[in-house]
């Protein structure tokens, strides 16, 4: 989009929307939308409070633990599926199924099995993230250029060498793509888990603010959450672009 010959940066329209928010808030259209300025000032006052820091810590903990398991189980599984046809045919139907299944329905099961706590939330997060990571790692291995594999063999690479020096790197752009989508899903998973289990992290915080009609607190936490999610997703896609330069060239 250009204005007076000057190209406006991509996300700059959000400023306009923020302005609209402020106006709607000032006009007192609805109790649920306080002015943005009020939300921001609440944000500043809330951000250092122990309750907020505790929620942030708990959420971050569950999120990173969930992503950790998803990545370190998902990538090897995907690579093995790409390498072994038998394993692929046994696992692929399940991976595809869970990829599009409404995983929210599984949260109650996790709650009865693992209790109303961190463990269930971490597993929810992993479940949201892992399937796309497996699928992309598999796709990454499957598309590896045959002649690259043959090159490695003709130069006498051992299977282990071939794995770490060829397969992993050749599949890296796809793997990172999967991790990026997986992480975005994990953010959603961790919040959904907290909402349903709702005694820890931001889930508890939202409950508290909603029940006490603290609208600007609610929006402030929401903004922090959205901004964090967006930052994570953008920085991962930046990383992906850094790597995918060679993806286009093979």
């Amino acid at each position: 989009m250009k204005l007076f010959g000057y190209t406006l940066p991509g996300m700059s329209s959000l400023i306009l929307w923020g302005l609209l928010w402020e106006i709607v808030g000032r006009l007192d259209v609805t109790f649920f939308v306080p002015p943005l300025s009020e939300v921001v000032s609440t944000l500043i006052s809330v951000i250092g409070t122990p309750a907020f820091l505790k929620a942030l810590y708990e959420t971050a903990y569950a999120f990173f633990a969930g992503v950790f398991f998803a990545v370190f189980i998902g990538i090897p599984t995907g690579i093995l599926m790409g390498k072994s046809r038998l394993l692929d045919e046994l696992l692929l139907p399940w991976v595809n199924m869970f990829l599009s299944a409404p995983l929210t329905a599984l949260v109650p099961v996790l709650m009865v099995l693992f209790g109303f706590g961190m463990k269930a939330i971490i597993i929810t997060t992993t479940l949201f993230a892992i399937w796309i990571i497996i699928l992309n790692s598999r796709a990454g291995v499957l598309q590896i250029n045959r002649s690259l594999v043959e090159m490695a063999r003709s130069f006498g690479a051992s299977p282990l060498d071939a794995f770490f020096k060829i397969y992993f790197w050749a599949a890296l752009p796809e793997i990172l793509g999967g991790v990026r989508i997986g992480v975005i899903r994990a953010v959603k998973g961790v919040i959904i888990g907290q909402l349903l289990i709702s005694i820890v992290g931001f889930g508890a915080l939202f409950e508290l603010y909603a029940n006490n009609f603290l609208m600007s607190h609610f929006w402030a936490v929401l903004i922090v959450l959205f901004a964090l999610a967006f930052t994570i997703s953008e920085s991962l896609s930046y990383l992906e672009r850094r790597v995918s330069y060679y993806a286009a060239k093979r």
Partner: protein
Amino acid sequence: MTGYRSLFLKVLSAVLVFGAWEIAGRIPVSYSFPTFLDTMSALVALTLDGTMLRAYAETLQPLAVGISISAVFGIGIGLWVGLSARFDWLFSPIFIVMQAAPLAALIPLLVMAYGVGLTSKVFVVCIMAMPVIVLNTGGAVRNTPSSLQEMGRSFLAREDQILLKVIIPAASPVIFSGLRLGISAGFIGAILAELKITPTGVGDIITYSRSIADYPSMYAAIFSIILFAVLFLNLVERLENVLFKGNDRGYVSD
């Protein structure tokens, strides 16, 4: 041969998983982990006495309404965004943020604003399903091969003809797959709404059976809704393959 092998492996894989479930239930790994067979018999019982049918009638309501609204508005906004750089600048960031953000966090607010009824649940389905539909549609329209558009112009197509005869057909496979992803997200939203807002439909069976520790029924309901969603999405994907066979090939020289 390969057809048999693939079918055999699929059956084997199902037998392995369900067998493991059965054994884990018999040990049992947890008092709240019923065996596969118990779960299936609960599923049959729930289906036969009509509970399941009534539950689905209720669950599918917000889903159907929400998906329809998201499809109409999502594709509409997506077309608009894809065609006009100005609207792209204005609207895309909102949907990009929505796509990356955990929108489920809005649920407590929606409940306060719209109560615990159908409206809130429809809203939940919409906010989950709409972003991917808008972004896919916009991207598909923007990525219509420029040579096809030039072809249309060089053969004197009017603007509306280019839109209807070139851009929309060229974009429809991606629009359709956006719709499929939207439905998948809509399912997540619909169930979330039933578990979080008020227990109705399948969510009610899950919540109620859990509260009375009737775990086979609880697992049966979860099993059935996951199976239902997966089968439905598979059906949509099949439809997609039939409708757009060969669509993604054919521009490029090979």
